[in-house]
């Protein structure tokens, strides 16, 4: 029924998420397509693939990221191993963000009250969010399926692999739906759900890397995807697990939702507190006070992965044969032949993390403007340049701290295993995360000065595009001048690779020019609300 409240609300929620859904769909399409063509190009013959399987089947570093391979002799089997490993995590992120946005954020903003004041039951409102998430899941499935078919894989197997790839979406949407009932705010709901996802990922990593822990794979939705074995003796019945868990989670969320007061969460927030007067001396101090929790979460997340990368770095490097080295070179990861090289490779992800962090800080600054709190600030004796400069300093300081922690903790992890790495080198690796991060921060600031409402999307979009550019470029062996457009290609992966001083300098110069222009333009434009 086209005119029913359910369909109207579901359409609204679906449309609300369209930019995020489309970005993920594009990521899925190109990511999956690149895997098919990449493997076909890198390992064209059966002999190549047997060699690859022998060398990679047991490599713990590779298993850490992608899980256990089951059949590396066919392109389908290879893709069926790679996609569930990483894309499934992105799928889970889409699911949890979508659910928190459609449920908790609607209550946060007060829009849910307006809807529920009309002739709409809570069940209908909840069902509309669920329908919108299912529709989005279908879009993501389609993107994966089309990419695999375009990559010349069998239609039936592609359909199943795509299904396996998105099977984490409803599960983590269910998790987000439940945390949306527990938490009193969008921020806390997202944080709780992300914590559950991190835990599920950690369990999968242990299952795939620790000896005799195979059974643990059944304990995490991310492990189930591996057990579906797409293109490697498919086991469709495993799909029942995410299906049942999703229904249970959504059922629990719906049950809580219809019983509690609208606008509240089961976890009560403390709304009264004695004054704490630290960090109230300037707008920048207040911003630091507001962002402290976020920074700590970033430090904890990056720190944990840095320790893991450090700990396994030595065993990865020492177990490598000449054959593996050759294979790795072919896959564009030639530096992963020593503990330092492996950690350097890991820093590619820490660089990405730091770039995303500065985008998040830019987003927080823009949020203050959009919410019109900036009007209150600038009506005080506070200059525009000073305010924005303070925000940028905070972003850079946070980025530097994350880079530093990544360096120190990966060193500590490696040193605990007796690996031969120097603290100075890894501190250098931490500092090496800054030029790309500053580049994106500078470009984002320029966007904030010119097109405030689109600036945050542009900043995230640039980071995502650049990273995908490098990923695809390495797989399809694009010409150097094409690949050099991505900062992720130009940055030297210290300490395994030499520090690229020229590239770093170019990035810093662009960052400084764009950032200065952005601040100047921001100071000259009208403030822009949401």
């Amino acid at each position, binding site marked *: 029924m086209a005119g029913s409240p359910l369909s109207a609300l579901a359409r609204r929620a679906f449309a609300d998420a369209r930019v995020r859904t489309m970005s993920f769909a594009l990521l899925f399409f190109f990511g999956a397509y690149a895997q098919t063509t990449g493997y076909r190009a890198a390992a064209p013959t059966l002999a190549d693939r047997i060699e690859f399987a022998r060398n990679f089947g047991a490599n713990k570093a590779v298993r850490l990221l992608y899980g256990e391979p089951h059949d590396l002799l066919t392109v389908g089997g290879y893709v069926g191993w790679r996609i569930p490993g990483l894309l499934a995590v992105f799928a889970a992120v889409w699911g949890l963000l979508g659910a928190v946005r459609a449920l908790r954020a609607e209550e946060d903003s007060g829009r849910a009250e307006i809807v529920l004041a009309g002739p709409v039951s809570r069940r209908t409102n909840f069902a509309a969010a669920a329908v919108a998430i299912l529709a989005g899941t279908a879009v993501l499935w389609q993107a994966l399926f089309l990419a695999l078919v375009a990559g010349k894989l069998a239609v039936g197997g592609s359909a199943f692999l795509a299904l396996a790839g998105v099977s984490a979406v409803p599960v983590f949407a269910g998790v987000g739906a439940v945390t949306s009932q527990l938490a009193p705010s969008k921020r806390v709901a997202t944080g709780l759900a992300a914590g559950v996802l991190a835990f599920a990922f950690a369990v999968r990593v242990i299952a795939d890397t620790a000896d005799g822990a195979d059974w643990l794979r059944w304990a995490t939705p991310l492990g189930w995807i591996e057990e579906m074995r797409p293109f490697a003796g498919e086991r469709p019945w495993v799909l029942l697990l995410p299906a049942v868990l999703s229904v249970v989670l959504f059922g629990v969320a719906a049950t809580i939702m219809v019983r509690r007061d609208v606008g509240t969460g089961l976890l009560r927030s403390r709304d009264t507190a004695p004054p704490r007067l630290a960090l109230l001396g300037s707008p920048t101090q207040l911003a630091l006070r507001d962002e402290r929790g976020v920074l700590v979460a970033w430090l904890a997340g990056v720190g944990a992965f840095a320790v893991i990368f450090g700990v396994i770095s030595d065993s990865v490097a020492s177990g490598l044969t000449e054959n593996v080295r050759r294979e790795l070179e072919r896959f564009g990861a030639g530096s992963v032949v020593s503990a330092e090289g492996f950690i350097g490779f890991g820093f590619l992800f820490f660089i990405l993390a730091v770039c995303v962090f500065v985008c998040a800080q830019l987003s927080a600054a823009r949020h203050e403007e959009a919410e019109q709190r900036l*009007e209150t600030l600038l009506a005080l004796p506070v*200059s525009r340049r000073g305010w924005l400069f303070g925000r940028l300093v905070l972003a850079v300081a946070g980025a530097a701290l994350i880079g530093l922690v990544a360096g120190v903790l990966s060193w500590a992890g490696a040193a605990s295993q007796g690996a031969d790495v120097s603290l100075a080198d890894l501190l250098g690796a931490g500092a090496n995360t800054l030029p790309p991060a500053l580049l994106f921060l500078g470009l984002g600031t320029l966007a904030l000065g010119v097109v405030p409402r689109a600036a945050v999307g542009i900043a995230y979009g640039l980071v995502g595009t650049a990273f995908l550019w490098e990923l695809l470029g390495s797989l399809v062996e694009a010409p150097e001048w094409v690949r050099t457009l991505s900062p992720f290609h130009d940055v030297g992966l210290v300490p395994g690779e030499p520090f690229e001083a020229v590239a770093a300098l170019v990035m810093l110069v662009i960052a400084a020019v764009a950032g200065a222009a952005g601040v100047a333009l921001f100071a000259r434009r009208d403030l822009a609300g949401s």
Partner: protein
Amino acid sequence: MNAIQTESLTKHYGTTVALDALHLSVAPGEVYGYLGPNGAGKTTTIRLLLGLHRPTAGAAQIFGLDAWRDPVAAHRRVAFVAGEPNLWPNLTSAETFAFLARVRGGIDEPYRDVLIERFQLDVDKKVRALSKGNRQKVQLVAAFAGRADLLILDEPTSGLDPLMEMAFRETVREAKERGQAVFLSSHILSEVEAICDRVGILRAGRLVEEGTLAELRHLSARTVEVTFEHEAPDLGGVSGVHVVGAGANAIRAEVTGSMAPLIDALAGHPVVAIESREPSLEEIFLHHYDESDGRVAA
């Protein structure tokens, strides 16, 4: 030197003219009421006065300092209450006061405590748990306790209950007694009538009327109600008289300018009662909106 002085202040957003050649002056110690319906340009004016938006033409000065070019110096003498009370949700009211006071560089603490008492604020409550009215009270306390020379208030009482409205009026009077200037944008005509020295009425980006209340009343029509013993005569042709309502033996008319033509016309008719009163601000206000574009004051 005037607290506020604008010269041909103009703002366009794309092709929309939000404010058209505004000439405005507010003296120190003056309470100025700025009236206009939604979308007339009141908030635009305030954003220009605070240097938040850039004038398309003309300029605004705050105590002689250019609002766009020299905002920081100007704002040392200004306190602002925003129409949307968006504060920092994780701070308590006490923390908000501390923050705003430190950034402003000082606050009259004893007076702040008086205002907290007067506006009945629970200062340990986090802003996110406050209603709109209470958040507005937080802004008002912070603004008035700062003892700024100029207070710019954008519809500050739209969320307040009648008791708090009275507290607000008392606070404005105290500010005036201290010589502070107040620029009050408002919808609430009774409030403006009660506390403002001068009033400006804005319509579609233009100042259509300005003056003291007495001046505005003088310029506008008086309302006269005449009751007759028998049937009311036809007064339609009398100069300066506009009949707005008629009953069986009574009429209501608006009279502009001198009353003499009406008195002459009534001579000889059996008049039982005449009631004449000055127009209320509401009538003056509606007079400017009803006729032209159909927009009615909210």
